[in-house]
Structure formats: C-alpha cells, structure tokens
C-alpha cells in the first residue's frame, strides 16, 4: 500500500518568503507528526496531531511556524518569513494512533533551502 508522501521533495526559497510543505499520511492513521532534521543530527520534534487537533505543538521553534490538519488526513506545515536557519529536511510521519505503542512511518522528507 501507499506510504507517507511529502511534497515537494525539494524547495528552494528566498529569505523572507512564505512556504508550505505538504504531508499525506497513510490512510487510516489518526496520528501525524512533523520533524525537522539538520545535517548530521537526528530528527527534531515539531508538532503532533491526533485527528484534526494539535495534541502537542511544543516543538515549533517560534510563531513563524504553523501547521494544520483540517480534515484529519493531509497536513500542511507553513513557515512565514523564512530565514536561512530554517534550511533543513522536514519529515512527516504517521502512526495508527497516538502514543508510543505504535511505530511511526516516515515520509521521504522535503528538503528546504533558504537562500
């Protein structure tokens, strides 16, 4: 079956611009996670959705970052006024339901480069 998909796979934008990154989770998975991974580091937690609601958004670095999941399926991570420090691979994962008892399935990521 289809795994987690993310679009675009690569995004190059200029400093100060707005970007949207999309995640399409595995069908039927109620939990969805966003992470950010910098070179040589492990994924850094950003936000976790259970259904349509953000159950934990404590990892979002500042108010330039926002994420939505209006229908409990596809999610969009939105970054306003991008900065060069936002450059990273943004990973999305989904699991059958929330909580650690279920493994997360990761998408291939979106590589964001802010010039």
């Amino acid at each position: 079956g289809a795994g987690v998909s993310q679009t675009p796979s690569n995004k190059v934008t200029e400093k100060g611009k707005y970007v949207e990154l999309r995640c399409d989770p595995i069908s039927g998975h109620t939990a969805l996670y966003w992470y950010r991974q910098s070179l040589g580091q492990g994924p850094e937690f950003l936000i976790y959705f259970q259904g349509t609601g953000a159950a934990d958004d404590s990892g979002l670095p500042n108010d330039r970052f926002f994420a939505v999941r209006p229908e409990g399926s596809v999610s969009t991570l939105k970054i306003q006024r991008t900065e060069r420090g936002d450059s990273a691979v943004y990973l999305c994962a989904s699991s059958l339901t929330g909580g650690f008892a279920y493994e997360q399935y990761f998408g291939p990521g979106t590589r964001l480069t802010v010039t």
Partner: protein
Amino acid sequence: SQQGEEDPQALSIQEGENATMNCSYKTSINNLQWYRQNSGRGLVHLILIRSNEREKHSGRLRVTLDTSKKSSSLLITASRAADTASYFCATETDSWGKFQFGAGTQVVVTP
C-alpha cells in the same frame, strides 16, 4: 536539546562482524524505539522496547534496556553491507506522542 545520545558517533566494521551501539537518555521514559536511516529508504522503524522490558529480539537485532542506567543498546549480529546506515534511538517521555531522537550512530559495513 536532544534527549538521547548515541555512542559511538561512527562505527566502521567488516561484513560478518557484530555492531553494537548505545543510547543514553536523561529523563524517565515510557518506551524507546530504534530507527535506521539511509539515503535510499529514509527513516525506518526497527524495534520498540517498553519501559518494563529488558530485552527484545527481531531477526539479527537485539535491543536491551536498562532503566536504572537510563541506557539502551542495539546489537546487529552478522552485519551485512546493506546494514550501512545511521541508527537513531527515540524516546517518549511523559508527554504521549512527543518523541525525541538522538544524534545517531553512523555505521559503515565494508564487504
């Protein structure tokens, strides 16, 4: 800041040898998972061990957990070139759904 720290940062072995890597964490956990990441397949879940478990096996993988020392180890037996990847531990602490990854161990297996 990251909860877990893997050790060593890098490991180079030959095919057939065993590879052992460790993960130490700072606060008490609900559970711990190990993941593998390579350029071809992205992050893939390997094994989950709950806080009340001490050891789990999956194929050539063996994971141990010592909650008193706040550490876990991943052993890959009879390694293969295809095991070349970065390995990460991920912990869930008191907040369900919030996972924290370490910086990873980069493993290179040479034929």
